[in-house]
């Protein structure tokens, strides 16, 4: 059964090597953070003037995983012995320099991209590369009712697993692929995040992430893409316990066979939108980013498939920090540029993206 009729352009899935490349690029992406302790909260006798920590953090990681490193620095360089004893990590919380509260359960890349889209267009433009996201680290009185989550790595892990399951349900209408993983494997995915190890993560994630090969390619398993051995884990293997009676047809897990792509739209300093995102439209054409944004934000994206330079240029979409072309296919984005939690985060910004 072909999803794509002859009249449509070749699918983005037709180059397997680029799929591996984009998954690797997404994984390796980092953003600059500048973490500064609120000067009013420094314990007595601290080394003032040094309480600023710079880190190039992985997009797919989380702030609770960065905290130990920041703590070690502060203990070594800033706090004196008494100060070090007095600080309680469980009271720590982050705020953006411009006052926005930072959530523990959001991936760092998402925190950064929503910061980018909240800036006015010319502020976002920078000729010297991405500007560090300035975060203020508070050491006490966390606004727990707004943070919604404890700052611990364990709470973060639970939230992460919850997002993976929600994504699994979005795709297939059940969470069999996630629950089919052994506990050791579930822990392994989080280990991959903690250690920031691509192979550790994908060894297990490949069992639950849709395969890049579409139905249109003859209905057979794809031969492994010609990429370095570390990406060999992308070839899908289904855990034997998941569906005892199921066929081994890899197309059942094809990215284009999902009922919906897990995707969310983040408006600048504004609401988050989530809805079903079928991989193909009623006429069989691939569901593109442009169509998706036009459907949900027609005032910002008045034309589903803009082609002319005279088409309105009111807003743009960042995915993994990259201004994404509106003809990108949602199914492809779901298979290749989703976050490690399974979700395609589309950060909408007003105007044109910065340099």
């Amino acid at each position, binding site marked *: 059964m072909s999803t794509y009729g002859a009249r449509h352009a070749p699918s983005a899935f037709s180059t397997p090597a680029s799929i591996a490349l984009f998954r690797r690029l997404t994984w390796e992406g980092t953003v600059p953070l500048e973490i500064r302790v609120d000067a009013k909260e420094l314990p007595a006798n601290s080394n003032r003037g040094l309480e600023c920590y710079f880190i190039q953090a992985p997009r797919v990681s989380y702030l609770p995983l960065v905290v130990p490193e920041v703590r070690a620095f502060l203990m070594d360089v800033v706090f004196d012995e008494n100060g070090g004893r007095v600080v309680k990590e469980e009271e720590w919380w982050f705020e953006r320099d411009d006052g926005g509260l930072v959530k523990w*359960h959001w991936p760092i890349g998402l925190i950064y991209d929503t910061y980018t889209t909240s800036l006015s267009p010319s502020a976002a433009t920078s000729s010297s590369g991405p500007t560090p996201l300035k975060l203020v680290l508070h050491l006490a009185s966390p606004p727990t009712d707004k943070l*919604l*989550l404890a700052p611990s790595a364990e709470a973060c892990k*639970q939230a992460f*697993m919850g997002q993976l399951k*929600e994504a699994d349900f*979005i795709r297939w209408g059940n969470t069999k692929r996630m629950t089919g993983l052994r506990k050791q494997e579930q822990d392994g995915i989080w280990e991959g995040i903690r250690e920031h190890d691509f192979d550790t993560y994908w060894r297990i994630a490949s069992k639950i992430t849709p395969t890049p090969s579409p139905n249109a390619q003859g209905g057979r398993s794809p031969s492994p893409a010609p990429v370095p051995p570390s990406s060999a884990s992308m070839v899908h293997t289904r855990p034997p316990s998941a569906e005892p009676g199921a066929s081994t047809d890899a197309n059942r897990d094809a990215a284009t066979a999902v009922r919906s792509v897990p995707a969310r739209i983040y408006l600048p300093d504004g609401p988050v*939108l989530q809805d079903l995102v079928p991989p193909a439209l009623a006429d069989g054409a691939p569901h593109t980013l442009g169509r998706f944004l036009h459907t949900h934000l027609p005032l*910002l994206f008045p034309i589903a498939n803009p082609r002319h330079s005279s088409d309105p240029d009111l*807003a743009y979409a960042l995915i993994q920090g990259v201004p994404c072309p509106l003809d990108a296919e949602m199914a492809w984005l779901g298979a290749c540029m989703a976050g490690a939690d399974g979700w395609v985060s589309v950060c909408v910004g007003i105007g044109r993206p910065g340099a």
Partner: protein
Amino acid sequence: MAASPDIRAIPSSWTASESGAAKEALDALETYKKKDPSKVVVRFRAIGNAPIMRQNFYKITASNRFQAVIQFLRKELGWKTGDPLYTYINMAFSPAPDDTVSNLFKSFSTDGHLIVNYSTTAAWG
């Protein structure tokens, strides 16, 4: 392009030539930021030993975060903040507490309502 008086709201760092499109975009953004006042039906279903409530269907404001639903449920059950309460959608997963009821409803509703399961112990991790 001459600046018109009603574009005061646009940040001054935006150039004058962009002001037409910029205003249109900002107005659009304001529209999308408005909270959805509509309500959706949430159906609570007890799991395991959790008590069944007399009333299980409730109309909840769509723009509420899921955290508000959890607090509402706690109040209806008469449970205190420290009492263990685990909630799931469609007996499958726990949503992030800042997921909105509207988004969850659009993605996961069945037969016109969003099923929220609740229990005193962790059921599906």
